[in-house]
């Protein structure tokens, strides 16, 4: 019996495919089924009802936190990438270039731990403010809540977005930026009106990827904020660890998946609209 090219190809990828199926597709399918299964074993939306009843506030909290983080990450990345591209002070550009990528190599959990010691009521930030005479010790407030989560996410994700954005900015024709300055545009206007529109697709990809990443981080909300309201990842871990309640956890998982699918759809739609306009 001789194998056709097609059969041979299938045979070759079979081990990899089997691995993906066993370790990823099967658990995914299983958790989906589990989310839609009632206590009696039949189809039911009961888990979703329970998840919504207990955690609807956290769903909104999660979406707001992640969107706000994306917004500030985008802003910080634009400032960094813009400075790297249009900066004229070689010392500032050189230092920024050397420093800005470091958080990329620091895991989320370490970043969260750093932020705890930095943002706590008696943390490094408040201590510095007190010793600088900016605030009284009694005025010191802990930032270990939603603000801490956003700060950590922005700190951790900015280098990634800035890296992609700076790469895209470096790839556009520099003469298009010089033409703007030649006609009288300041560097800020050149960045906003001439450079960014040319790299918008890259910025959007970077932000969608960041959105999905931040949506799935457990360590940061758990370590930095801890209390209610919190993010869906913490709720999922809690349902499983405290109650062994896989059904509700899986329902929360499906909700998370739908939120990230929403981001993906926005991205794809924009991409198609651009293709259509061309």
């Amino acid at each position: 019996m001789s194998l056709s090219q097609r059969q041979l190809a299938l045979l070759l990828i079979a081990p990899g495919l089997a691995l993906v199926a066993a370790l990823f597709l099967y658990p995914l399918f299983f958790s989906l089924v589990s989310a839609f299964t009632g206590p009696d074993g039949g189809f039911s939306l009961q888990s979703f009802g329970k998840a919504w009843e207990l955690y609807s506030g956290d769903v909104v909290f999660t979406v707001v936190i992640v969107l706000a983080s994306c917004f500030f990450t985008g802003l910080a990345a634009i400032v960094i990438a813009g400075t790297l591209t249009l900066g004229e002070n070689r010392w500032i550009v050189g230092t920024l270039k050397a420093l800005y990528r470091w958080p990329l190599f620091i895991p989320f959990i370490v970043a969260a731990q750093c932020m705890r010691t930095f943002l706590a009521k008696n943390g490094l930030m408040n201590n510095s403010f007190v010793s600088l005479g900016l605030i009284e010790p009694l005025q010191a407030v802990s930032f270990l809540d939603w603000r801490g989560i956003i700060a950590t996410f922005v700190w951790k994700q900015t280098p990634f977005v800035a890296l992609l954005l700076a790469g895209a900015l470096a790839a556009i024709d520099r003469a298009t930026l010089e033409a703007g300055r030649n006609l009288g545009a300041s560097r800020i206007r050149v960045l906003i009106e001439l450079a960014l529109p040319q790299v918008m697709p890259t910025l959007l990809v970077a932000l969608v990827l960041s959105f999905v990443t931040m949506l799935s981080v457990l360590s940061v909300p758990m370590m930095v904020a801890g209390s209610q309201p919190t993010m869906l990842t913490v709720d999922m871990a809690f349902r499983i660890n405290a109650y062994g309640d896989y059904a509700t956890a899986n329902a929360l998982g499906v909700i998370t998946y739908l939120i990230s699918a929403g981001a993906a759809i926005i991205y794809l739609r924009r991409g198609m609209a651009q293709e259509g306009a061309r």
Partner: protein
Amino acid sequence: MQPETQARAGSGAAIAVRGLQVAYGGTRVLHGIDLDFAPGSFTALLGSSGCGKTTLLRSLSGFVPVEAGSIVVGGRDIAGLPPEKRGMAMVFQSYALWPHMTVLQNIGYGLKLRGRSKAEIAAKVGEMLSFLGLAGYENRKVTALSGGQRQRVALGRALAIDPGILLLDEPLSNLDAKIRMTMRHEIRAIQQRLGLTAVHVTHDREEAMTMADRLVIMQAGRIAQVGTPEEVYDRPASAFVANFMGAENVLPLSIARSGAQAAVAAGEARATLADAAAAALPSGEALGYFRDDVASLGALDAPAASGDLLVPGVIAARAYPGGIYRYKVEAAGRQITVDDAGRHELGTKVGLRIPLQRLHIFPATEAGIAA
């Protein structure tokens, strides 16, 4: 300056460059340039790559920091100003149009920066487009235009702000040959109509000659010669300029001066010059530079006129570029390119007739660089 230019010289601005020095990371690129640009003049900066012509243009426009020296426009030294404060409009080699904007937005951007109303911008852009032969193109995407159209839009974008000075950074080198010819005339005509002071960087000799009132030949960060196209072509100031302007044949000469006469020898061949022509010659070892169309081919024993050198040679190669034949002739130990109407076979012994008057002769010591 040409008559039409003088008639409308009002809107162009004068530029005075003094002692301009520019360095890239410790390497000096411009070594003290002194140059004046008269209002309404068209100057071409010409030179081989790396000579500093683009750096000079970019230091005028403010994209290259100036180490020392001044650039005075309208009585003000602008050498320290950022590009956006200089009021010079530049046209780039890559057109540098903004792909996310329409033709209207591209051309109108400079006006938008100057706070003009939408109606004003639309009116000015419409005027600009019909001026450039692109009427009705306002809402086209610039990515949908051809190379020539793009360069016209880029020109319109520069001209829309009514600049006194137009800087052209090799604007035609990305265009195909036919469109390049048309654009040469168009740019020149527009510059004259508006009376702009134009500075054009190019490495294309013919382009510079046909467009400019004045050529500035640059060599290794210095000015080698400034003059009208005729001056630079017919009376090159140095061996480098002669060579750059197309006099690529080099003939080693030995010159003996006696009184009002000069005896010139090239190998066995001899000729004499008298009076003014002789007085201009250096004495001793020299190199003569000449173009392909200067020498002619004849019989070895043909009588030579007194001012002609008759150098014996052998035809080594032949090509037919059209109209005339182009020969490589081995003579006086060199390969010399000669255009001639007649067809000669390879290996033929010929007499290379070179009129001394049409040689650019420089002492061998100073000419060494270009030989």
